[in-house]
């Protein structure tokens, strides 16, 4: 719980990691990719305040103590959702597997949720693994990472025919939240690899599932907004928006938030710190303090209220993950975040 100016906020960090990208975990012959990958992430850390930067060595593999300190002790996080990203072509034991994440969840079962993953290119074996993971980790969500390299393939799309089998399997297993992440992606090589159209198609064909588009489709925020405004089950994952822009590019942050509030709406936006890329503390505190400036430049953007922030910081994610929110941390006027059904009413109006 985070308190500021007499208001209390229930904070759900819907996108965080506990990874191992240390050289001991690099696949032989693939070192340039394993190294290039984590160095790229580390550069993103540079977009946060200088006093929160870590040396690369720590960034490659931070400890459980670091995690507990940064997320719970100082980070104001009530519930964390650990996302799983495998990248086993580059990292021997995987970058950030469900198994590794689950070890942390075992220590903090009341505070953490682990999300699984699937990759349609793994076929039958992948379906079976998803089933096992769902049971073992009680999965409510998965992260799909379309930029992953796999046996010579440089990526996949949610419109690939095999992907639908996995989405059907998710429904069968009670997994309802699909966190889709596009980048940094390079495939299809000759098209715009960041195009979010496949998420659009999957969201339309699978109305029972929620699609949380991580990093709001960056670098294609415009395509994401045009899609999300039409799809009641598409949500905006704010990881990178807050961490990457609020400090480094405050004017752009105002505008991106303004556009998201306009096109996507405050009921469909989810805070995510993207830890270990950025520590949650400055993001939570900064976001609660943030105001849309009153100047002409921002005049026709929606201006966030305390309720807006309560929804974005935790109540929206709590709803998607059936997290119980203490009564005093819910919205005072009974104004619960809109359910998908509400959005559909507006859609068909």
């Amino acid at each position: 719980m985070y308190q500021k100016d007499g208001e209390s906020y229930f904070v759900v960090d819907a996108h965080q990691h506990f990874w191992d990208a240390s050289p001991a975990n690099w696949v032989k012959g693939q070192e340039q990719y394993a190294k290039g990958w984590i160095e790229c992430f580390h550069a993103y850390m540079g977009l946060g305040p200088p006093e929160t930067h870590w040396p690369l060595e720590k960034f490659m593999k931070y400890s459980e103590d670091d995690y507990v300190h940064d997320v719970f002790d100082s980070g104001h996080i009530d519930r964390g959702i650990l996302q799983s990203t495998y990248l086993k072509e580059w990292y021997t034991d995987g970058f950030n597997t469900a198994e590794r994440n689950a070890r942390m969840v075992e220590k903090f079962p009341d505070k953490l949720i682990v999300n699984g993953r699937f990759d349609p290119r793994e076929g039958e074996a992948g379906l079976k693994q998803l089933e096992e993971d769902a049971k073992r980790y009680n999965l409510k969500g998965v992260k799909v990472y379309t930029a992953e390299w796999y046996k010579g393939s440089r990526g996949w799309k949610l419109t690939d025919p095999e992907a639908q089998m996995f989405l059907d399997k998710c429904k069968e297993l009670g997994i309802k939240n699909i966190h889709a992440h596009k980048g940094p992606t390079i495939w299809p090589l000759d098209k715009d690899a960041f195009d979010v159209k496949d998420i659009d198609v999957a969201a339309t064909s699978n109305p029972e599932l929620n699609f949380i588009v991580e990093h709001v489709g960056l670098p294609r925020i415009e395509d994401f907004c045009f899609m999300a405004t039409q799809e009641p089950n598409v949500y905006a994952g704010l990881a990178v928006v807050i961490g990457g822009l609020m400090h480094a590019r405050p004017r752009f942050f105002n505008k991106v938030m303004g556009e998201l509030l306009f096109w996507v709406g405050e009921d469909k936006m989810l805070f995510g710190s993207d830890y270990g890329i950025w520590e949650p503390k400055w993001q939570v505190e900064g976001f609660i303090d943030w105001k849309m400036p009153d100047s002409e430049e921002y005049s026709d953007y929606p201006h966030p209220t305390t309720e807006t922030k309560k929804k974005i910081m935790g109540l929206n994610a709590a709803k998607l993950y059936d997290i119980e929110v203490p009564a005093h941390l819910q919205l005072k006027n009974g104004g619960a975040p809109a359910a998908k059904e509400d959005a559909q009413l507006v859609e068909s109006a």
Partner: protein
Amino acid sequence: MTATMATTANVLGALAEVYDPELDEPITRLGFVTSCEVSADGDVEVILRLPTPQCAPNFAFLMAADARKVVRRLPEVREVTIKLEDHYTGDEINAAVGRGEGFTGAFPGETVDDDLLALRELFLRKALVGRESRLCEALLRDGGTAEEIAALRIDDLPDTPDARRCIELRRDLGLAHGHDEPAFVLPNGDPVAAAELTRWLRTARLVRMSLEVNGGICRSLLQFRHGVAIDDPEEVLR
């Protein structure tokens, strides 16, 4: 040395005509040109570096190929070498560009699209929408009405970098761009009608913001990784 010797300055001048297709900004302003050397014999070597090794290979290829094209057009130049450094697919791209081949030369078997025309066009359209929205907002700020703005011709536009770039983009997209053509058009060339100007601007402004934000993130990443300080439109524009 002769009076017609190629100089670093005129090679850099030529490179300023190469745009990052995704951001619609010259690669020289984005800080992507790390070095440019001209030998006594007129051989040129240009080194390019993008913000991350994972930057999209298709855009990286287009920038490297365009760089080679504009430098080779300079009359005093002999051999031209373009080297993309610190990139996952740098070797493939450098080899294909060095041989003067298209995109299929860099990734044989993975693509049949040699010229990436569809990709290029998609981003030329985004760029046009983005530039027009900036022009339109400036006119509205100066008190113009939707009717007045929709009635403007290309000749009526102020002589600004955005207006000049809009004309170039329309030319590259094969859209009419004569003096008497409408100043504001949809990506298919149809004029923006006065009645739909506000709605059009709402979406056009989002496209522009996306391009600007991506440019901002690229600059910040380059700055952090390599200490490259580059001129920054976020601070300059307003």
